[in-house]
């Protein structure tokens, strides 16, 4: 489409380096990778893997909210269902971890297609309510379906052997596998954001009517980003199930949907790196406050209120404004 490329040229004129990766972003990615490589020597690997899974989850969510302008309040549905499928295939069918994770991701994509095609019929606030309601439906399904183990969830999922060869039982081995999965996931998201498709999405986010008048079938773009976001959220959930050897109702409950919104909001909606930081902060907070029971919920609520009232750009958004570079 000729109009496509012309559009993008115009968009990219004032953003040099948008075609390749800007030096700054390259540096941050390399920094993150190095950090990921050395971190398990200093911190507890399981905790780090949790942070990484949630970072991917939050970035997938941010792809939809920050770049598509669609607030889904039911992303736990994809995270959780992928977690169930990956746990089930690994435990009951003896799938290798990478295959189980792929199955989970695929299931989340299909679910995303089904829910997304209905949800994009409504806009704004209704969209949020519709996605939340469907996620609750997935929750009830998970509660009652025979293969999910109801309240117990699917426990003691085997970590298995990567490609049937490398044992994932030692934390260190699994850690580097998860690091690879999450890092690739983040790069994929980065690529989507900076592709022509991503530019069209931002156009829809900022002014849907204009994009329609330019000849874009906006609902197709919205559905596509919804499915991509659901699949990547699924990738995070499926990986999480292998890490913790557990898929449970927590993963599909609405509180999980709220948590990912919070991570994204805190880190910075519409920034590339914000959700990673947001996820790290929230997971750390949960870890430290875990012994105080309901204070986790209260703390999350307070962060929500403070973030909405005082810094809607999020932490990374504020940094980006100060250094005047998109992050």
């Amino acid at each position, binding site marked *: 489409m000729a109009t496509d490329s012309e559009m993008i040229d115009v968009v990219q004129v004032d953003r040099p380096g948008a075609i390749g990766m800007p030096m700054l972003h390259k540096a941050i990615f390399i920094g993150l990778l190095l950090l990921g490589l050395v971190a398990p020597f200093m911190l507890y690997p399981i905790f780090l893997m949790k942070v990484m899974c949630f970072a991917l989850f939050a970035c997938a969510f941010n792809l939809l909210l920050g770049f598509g302008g669609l607030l889904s309040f039911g992303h736990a549905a994809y995270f959780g269902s992928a977690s169930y499928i990956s746990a089930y295939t690994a435990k009951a069918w003896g799938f290798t971890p990478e295959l189980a994770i792929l199955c989970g991701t695929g299931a989340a994509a299909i679910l995303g297609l089904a829910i997304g095609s209905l949800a994009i019929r*409504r806009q704004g606030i209704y969209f949020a*309510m519709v996605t939340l309601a469907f996620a609750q*439906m997935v929750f009830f399904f998970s509660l009652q379906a025979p293969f999910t183990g109801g309240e117990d969830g699917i426990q003691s999922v085997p970590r298995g052997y990567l490609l049937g060869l490398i044992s994932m039982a030692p934390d260190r081995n699994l850690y580097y596998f998860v690091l690879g999965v999450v890092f690739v996931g983040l790069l994929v998201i980065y690529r989507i954001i900076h592709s022509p498709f991503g530019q069209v999405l931002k156009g829809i986010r900022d002014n849907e009517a204009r994009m329609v008048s330019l000849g874009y079938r906006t609902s197709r773009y919205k559905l596509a980003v919804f499915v991509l976001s659901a699949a990547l959220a699924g990738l995070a959930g499926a990986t999480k199930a292998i890490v913790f050897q557990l898929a449970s109702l927590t993963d599909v409950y609405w509180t999980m949907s709220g948590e990912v919104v919070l991570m994204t909001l805190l880190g910075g909606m519409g920034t590339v790196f914000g959700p990673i930081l947001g996820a790290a902060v929230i997971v750390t907070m949960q870890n430290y406050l875990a012994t105080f029971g*309901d204070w986790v919920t*209260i703390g999350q*609520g307070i962060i929500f*209120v403070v973030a909405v009232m005082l810094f809607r750009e999020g932490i990374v958004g504020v940094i980006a404004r100060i250094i005047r570079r998109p992050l």
Partner: protein
Amino acid sequence: MFELLGIPPQALFGQLLLGLINGSFYAILSLGLAIIFGLLNIINFTHGAQYMMGAFVAWMLLNYLGIPYWGALIVVPIIVGATGIVLERLLISRLYHLDHLYGLLLTFGLALIITGIFRNQYGISGLPYAIPKQLAGGQNLGFMFLPNYRGWVVVVSLVVCLATWFAIEKTRLGGYLRAATENPTMVGAFGINVPRLITLTYGFGVALAAFAGVLAAPIYSVNPNMGADVIIVVFAVVVIGGMGSILGSILTGFGLGLVEGLTRVFYPEGSAVVIFVIMAIVLLVKPAGLFGREA
């Protein structure tokens, strides 16, 4: 009429009554949401927590101050409505110039805080609240047994819903409210204090939720989580009905409660999800909702 499709009438009407009761709560809560949304343009995610607060404040009044059910029915909506007004003035009102999403996120955060505080104080096991003795017992209607309190809930909910409808559609204040929903700037130009109208509207919507909470206290145990689960169903009810019409909200609420009750008789496994399935069908057939205008 001893058996309908193999279902004994006691079971059928019992579930229908239960559905009607759930429907009463759906109707009052979605009515409050619709009124708030109409004027404030935010979805009040705190609604479920405020419903829960209603039940808890009623319990506290009874156990700490000895104020019985009948007093609570009047005092609780005022107290909880006042807390709503404080929230609106302090926090929500600062977000009107922003995207609607921030209102949703803020009220979600508030819901987490309120729920967390009550869970911290009272645990999650639930507290009992006795049915007032004037409404204890029940009537044998021949085909079913009707507990007095449940009949009362259905009747009083209907009355409250219809009174709200009347106040909004037929009174002068309601006229201001509808006008401000259409065009707040113009209404302000006529000398009506729109910000105050907005604050009062929020307080009223919250008071409705709290009233529903008091009604619910003797039926369900008073529990910090009682709001969270019902509010998501109410969101689905709102999507199905559309928020354009007051009567539409009421009808949809009661209707879906009945459908849920029927499902519990004929296909119990599906009762938890039937409303969401209906929502999916409505989205396919009439995306704006049964009574809705396109948002």
